[in-house]
């Protein structure tokens, strides 16, 4: 390793951390310079978030130490890290839903006057800072009334407003729209100019290339590579170091035969879907739904699935009508749905990986029509753990202890285990998923499609939609605005169709 010109602001030395049955980190060390953005890459479960939690004082490492400006730190709780000038934006958003944006931003350090909270000063300060950062948020809005993206933005601003000298961002863009991402990038660049040391974790390699000065790659809780600069480093090198094999084209699109119409949605409306929505998906077809955050894609799919009340319209699978607002009827018809909010709607945290995988499919494997077939369930769980490479010590691990990406794979497995799968709707299936696993998930989608399953994929990542889908449907403000067959679709026309009229159609890099 060539010596850095400036002494590192932040240094991890021989960090080790073990959870029961999992060695999350072993002898890992790297350093981050002031005025630089350091990318942290690795597969799901590689230990990135664990490292950040150590930095944030949430976990105490079993071995090794963290040093700031050469001085060894002993963080025992989050407040210690904050006091030392560290701000961490955690992968799992940590906000208080009932409190206002202002109070969330100033959590733990509200200004007071004569012992009482000085709300006016706080409001003024918050407004000024938000304006200065160019972030449009109402300081008085309650967090629970904001979209996920806006909440994420609050988290980011909260960390930035701490004026910390070290800032770690753990997958901050996973639920941000293009536009919010732009804001974030601008903020990060400003902070770099101010001389902050930053760690940036993302599974989106473009972001790493765009933003980072240096990078470290983790695999299986160890460091496998350090890049002092990303000049001249290719995407394939990074992927290869991360995954340990060559992936080539990550999308690896495979054309396939398409059959009859499987899923037909006609004039469906719901509480959050005011204008009727109609579309069709054929057997073997993968349809990508693209739109900006808030375009209403999740809403419409939730209504189709029955998770939200359907107020009008018909949904048919292979010509058979699916009962409105009745999830179990949808599942019986072979129509299933993977929600976007994994933690709230996807996993059952305190139950095991196996339970999470078998929760629905087990009804088909009952002994004597009554008793759960444990052996069969174990087999099913192990099959998918292996097939999707779910990183877990064993199938009985509580799923909340898995890394985010691995939780996502388990939720997907739940539906893959369905006997008679006909329509699969996945909402942001690769959110927070590593490159290797993305590739695996795409392959699973292709495989399903090849078996004749109709696949609907909601995604906010344009390259993914373009790379995987046979057909792209764009949505904007709760309406379908356009359709493109594969080949016709490109960045410009898809984005233009997804943007509300009046907004500029060019990708915005105008900061």
């Amino acid at each position: 390793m060539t010596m850095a010109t400036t002494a590192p602001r932040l240094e991890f030395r021989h960090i080790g951390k073990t959870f029961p049955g999992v060695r999350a980190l072993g002898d890992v060390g790297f350093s981050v310079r002031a005025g630089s953005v350091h990318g942290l890459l690795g597969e799901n479960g590689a230990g990135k978030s664990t490292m950040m939690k150590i930095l944030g004082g949430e976990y105490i490492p079993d071995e090794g130490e963290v040093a700031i400006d050469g001085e060894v730190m002993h963080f025992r709780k989050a407040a210690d890290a904050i006091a030392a000038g560290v701000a961490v934006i955690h992968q799992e958003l940590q906000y208080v839903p009932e409190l206002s944006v202002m109070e969330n931003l100033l959590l733990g350090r509200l200004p007071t006057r004569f012992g009482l909270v000085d709300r006016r000063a706080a409001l003024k300060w918050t407004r000024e800072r938000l304006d200065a950062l160019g972030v449009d948020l109402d300081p008085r809005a309650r967090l629970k009334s904001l979209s996920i993206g806006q909440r994420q933005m609050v988290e980011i601003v909260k960390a930035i407003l701490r004026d910390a000298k070290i800032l770690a961002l753990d997958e901050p863009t996973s639920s941000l729209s293009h536009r919010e991402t732009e804001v974030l990038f601008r903020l990060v660049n400003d902070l770099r100019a101010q001389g902050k040391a930053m760690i940036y974790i993302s599974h989106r390699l473009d972001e790493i290339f765009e933003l980072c000065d240096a990078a470290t790659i983790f695999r299986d809780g160890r460091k496998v590579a350090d890049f002092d600069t990303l000049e001249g480093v290719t995407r394939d090198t990074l992927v290869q170091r991360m995954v340990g094999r060559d992936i080539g084209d990550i999308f690896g699109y495979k054309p396939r035969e398409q059959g009859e119409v499987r899923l037909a949605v006609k004039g469906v409306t719901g509480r959050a879907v005011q204008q009727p929505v109609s579309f069709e998906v054929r057997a073997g077809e993968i349809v990508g739904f693209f739109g900006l955050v808030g375009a209403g894609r999740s809403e419409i799919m939730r209504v189709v699935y029955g998770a939200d009340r359907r107020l009008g319209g018909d949904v048919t699978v292979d010509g058979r009508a699916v009962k409105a607002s009745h999830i179990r009827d949808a599942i019986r018809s072979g129509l299933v749905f993977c929600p976007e909010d994994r933690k709230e709607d996807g996993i059952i945290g305190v139950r095991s990986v196996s339970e999470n995988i078998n929760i629905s499919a087990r009804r088909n494997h009952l002994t004597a029509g009554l008793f759960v077939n444990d052996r069969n369930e174990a087999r099913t769980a192990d099959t998918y753990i292996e097939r999707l490479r779910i990183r877990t010590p064993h199938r009985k691990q509580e799923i909340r202890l898995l890394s985010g990406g691995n939780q996502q794979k388990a939720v997907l497995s739940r539906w893959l285990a369905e006997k008679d799968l006909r329509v699969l709707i996945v909402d942001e299936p690769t959110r927070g998923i590593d490159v290797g696993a993305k590739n695996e998930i795409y392959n699973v989608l292709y495989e399903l499609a090849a078996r004749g399953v109709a696949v609907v994929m909601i995604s906010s990542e344009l390259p993914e939609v373009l790379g995987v889908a046979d057909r792209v449907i764009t949505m904007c403000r709760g309406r379908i605005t356009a359709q493109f067959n594969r080949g016709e679709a490109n960045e410009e026309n898809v984005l233009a169709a997804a943007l509300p009229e009046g907004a500029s159609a060019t990708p915005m890099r105008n900061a």
Partner: protein
Amino acid sequence: MTETNAAAIGATRETQADRRRALLWHIVDDYSLILIFIVLFAVLSFTVEYFFSWDNVVGLALSVSQIGMVACTMMFCLASRDFDLSVGSTVAFAGVMCAIVANASGSVVLGIAASLVAGAVIGAINGVVIAKLKINALITTLATMEIVRGLAFITSHGQAVGVTSEAFFTLGALELFGLPVPVWVTVACFVVFGVLLNKTIYGRNTLAIGGNPDAARLAGVAVDRTRIAIFLIQGVVAALAGIILASRMTSGQPNAGEGFELNVISACVLGGVSLMGGRASISGVLVGVLIMGTVQNAMSLMNIDAFYQYLVRGAILLIAVLVDQLKNRRQSR
């Protein structure tokens, strides 16, 4: 960047009229419980004889004064997603303690001080066990409820402990500006804890902890310390309620306050305090306490059979929460 995010997302789907209507609803929602109470009070005033008389109103206020005091601190406890079943026992123990110490030392002030300290210690123990040892609040306070009740019986030998000093009785019987001292103390509690909840870091942190303990901790909020403080203060206020009760009854009674904890918690929940933490309002709690007291008072005035009173109490509880629920449902639509 020139464009706001909201504009880009196109989220501003509401018109001016929409917004005004929303605001109106917002006000109705915020004060719905108060409205319910006002209507209830008005109806009872017209239909129930003697209900709307100064004597009765004072009696009503007196009857909810202990519950009211403790409801203020229970609000904090619930808002931080905790739970305290030990308050009833603390009320009893504090009364006994105060009487014993006052008798032994001949000083009422010393008795009161000892009793407040005892309350603080009980509260602190609850808090430390719950916050530091991370034991479920329900179980912890169920255990201290038993233990403290046991202490009340043991110290008093199961007998009411009479206080000899006259000064002590006046505390409970004295009237200031037409209202008895216990009512004033309760009013003071509502004011103090209302300010604490809304205007101080302590209150805001309490709500943050209840709303998302992890977020609070990661933001550097002293979660453990705040939780301990909440229980400690609750212990002190429960002890205060016990002292006042003892002075009203002119003796410390070891079996006082049985079932008190559930009444207090009911009042809070009735007042819109969420058991899932993070949501509380002092006006809500006040109204919750008043509704509970008013219903009980009116039932007695109407000579409703004791057995049927169970039905009415249950039904009122259900209806009040149901109304509140309907409001929330509309809100989150």
